[in-house]
């Protein structure tokens, strides 16, 4: 018999308590892992959105002082296009509209003929980049599913503006970006008209020369800042890190995990301590047969860590299954992006092991303080 097998046997013979403790740890791990996975999924989605658009730089009116997107004159794009290293500029307008009475839908307005349209793959309907003036809209596949609309149909945006709010669905497209697949895209001037902000955009997508170095990128950024001090110039990853909603989600994940960690540690301590009290005589015997103190401490700590690692495995599985189930629900399909990367699961196991060590420390200390002859008399 090997030492870990002996430790495992100790847990197995108290199955009910071990499973309850493991379940407690699993709930904490599941909560932490799923929240982190969703927060990271949104991070990844933002990066992905700009990556598939081949956009390396974003110029926006939103700053740290004004976190909400601010409208910017569309003509600024013409100035940006003249700067060195800039191969393309696409002004864009973004908003959330109520559609068909109840569904909140992201709506994007893109400049006619801009490079943004190129990455969309038309699944059905008319050719993308419509040149006409007709009020048409393209739906992403997910949005099409939500609204149960396809080409030839029509959708109505709820708006107070005295303009036509009924749009013909010109086609359904597919995008590698979840945000785009779950949105409606129309020509910029139509959305400007719908929102009453003619000649304005929220931000500019900049497609840069692939050869541009980080130093040249920074120089370009400084150039834009000098010329347009009210605008903010960001890389795609900076968008994710500056996003207020994502920062809140990350803070929530950390807070949830911290609380789960504390509860888990207390639960494990309680469970292992009870086990040590019940096994006083056994600990006394182990001392009587010559077990060193450090082996008894190792036994208790290993029991505690085994429990927590079991909890981490179960919790991670529950988190993956739970989030996948949520994603597959019709009402949430396309609204949740989760990133269960290996490093997240590994972190969960490492944190669980740390909780096990922390939770087992005091019981192990108590066990090591037993006097063999007193422990052997213990009933």
């Amino acid at each position, binding site marked *: 018999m090997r030492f870990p097998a002996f430790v495992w046997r100790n847990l197995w013979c108290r199955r009910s308590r071990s499973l309850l403790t493991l379940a407690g740890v699993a709930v904490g791990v599941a909560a932490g892992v799923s929240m982190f996975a969703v927060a990271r999924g949104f991070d990844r989605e933002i990066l992905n959105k700009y990556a598939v658009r081949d956009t390396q730089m974003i110029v926006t009116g939103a700053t740290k002082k004004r976190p909400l997107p601010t409208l910017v004159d569309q003509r600024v794009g013409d100035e940006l296009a003249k700067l060195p290293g800039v191969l393309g500029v696409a002004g864009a307008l973004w908003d959330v509209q109520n559609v068909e009475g109840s569904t909140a839908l992201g709506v994007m307005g893109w400049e006619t003929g801009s490079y943004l349209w190129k990455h969309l793959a038309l699944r059905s309907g008319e050719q993308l980049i419509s040149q006409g003036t007709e009020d048409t809209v393209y739906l992403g596949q997910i949005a099409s599913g939500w609204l149960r609309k396809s080409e030839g149909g029509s959708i109505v945006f709820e708006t107070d503006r005295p303009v036509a709010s009924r749009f013909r669905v010109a086609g359904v497209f597919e995008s590698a970006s979840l945000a785009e697949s779950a949105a409606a895209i129309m020509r910029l001037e139509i959305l400007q008209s719908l929102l009453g902000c003619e000649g304005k955009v929220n931000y500019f997508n900049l497609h840069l020369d692939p050869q541009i170095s980080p130093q040249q990128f920074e120089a370009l950024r400084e150039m834009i800042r000098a010329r347009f001090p009210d605008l903010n110039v960001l890389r795609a990853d900076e968008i994710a890190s500056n996003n207020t909603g994502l920062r809140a989600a990350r803070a929530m994940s950390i807070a949830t995990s911290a609380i789960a960690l504390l509860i888990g540690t207390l639960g494990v301590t309680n469970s292992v301590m009870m086990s040590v009290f019940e096994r006083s005589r056994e600990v006394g015997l182990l001392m*009587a047969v*010559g077990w060193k103190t450090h082996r008894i401490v190792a036994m208790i700590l290993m029991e505690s860590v085994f429990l927590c690692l079991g909890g981490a495995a179960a919790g991670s599985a529950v988190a993956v299954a739970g989030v996948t189930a949520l994603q597959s629900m019709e009402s949430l399909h396309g609204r949740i992006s989760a990133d269960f990367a290996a490093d997240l699961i590994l972190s969960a196991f490492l944190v669980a092991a740390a909780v096990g060590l922390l939770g087992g420390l005091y019981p192990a200390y108590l066990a090591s303080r037993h006097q063999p002859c007193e422990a052997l008399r213990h009933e």
Partner: protein
Amino acid sequence: MELHRTHDTGSVAESGDVPVVELKNVRRTFDGGRIEALRGINLAIHRNEFVAISGPSGCGKSTLLNLMGVLDEPDAGEVLFGGRRLDGISARTRFRSREVGFIFQAFHLLPTLTALENVQIPMFEMPWSCRERVNRARQLLEEVGLASRLNHLPSELSGGERQRVAAARSLANEPKLILADEPTGNLDSGSSTQLMELLTTLHARKNLTLIVVTHDPAWSGRAGCVVRMRDGQIVGDIFREPAP
């Protein structure tokens, strides 16, 4: 007859051998000094002796055994092992691991482990591989007549079989001193006799020093020396010629 020990006088054996265990004016109290379990014990036990310690309940027999097995410490006096004091946790733990084996009245087998696994428990402190531990445990269980019960849990064994597992466990790390605290106290007469025969045989075959605390007068007939105790003191001892 060679005199092996004296009690109360503190004198050392005439044989010149260093005693395996020697207690000098040992006192042990409990409950803040209210209960005097041992009151100035002097005792020397030599290599290969078979000593039975008898006396009424509460006379201090088990306390004396605990001190000889380094499970407890005296309030006053000295306990010497091979002429040396065991100072420090490390030395005491090492002694319990390698020099002494215990057999308890209540067996103290771990209920979730099989007989084979129970015997391996003390071996974790030895530099032996898993295979060596298993082989040795199997061999010891065969020696005590339990070759067919290796993979049985304690709950599946009779009282006598459990105590034989405990005897095998006491021999796990090849100690030279075996301390048995009322080893037949929980056994029927048949099992008691079998266990006595087993321990007597092991004592002779392995050149062990065997110390048995007991109420059972049957042990007295087998031991080379019987130490009688009353009220925390040694009140007499009976010596016999060592078996040829």
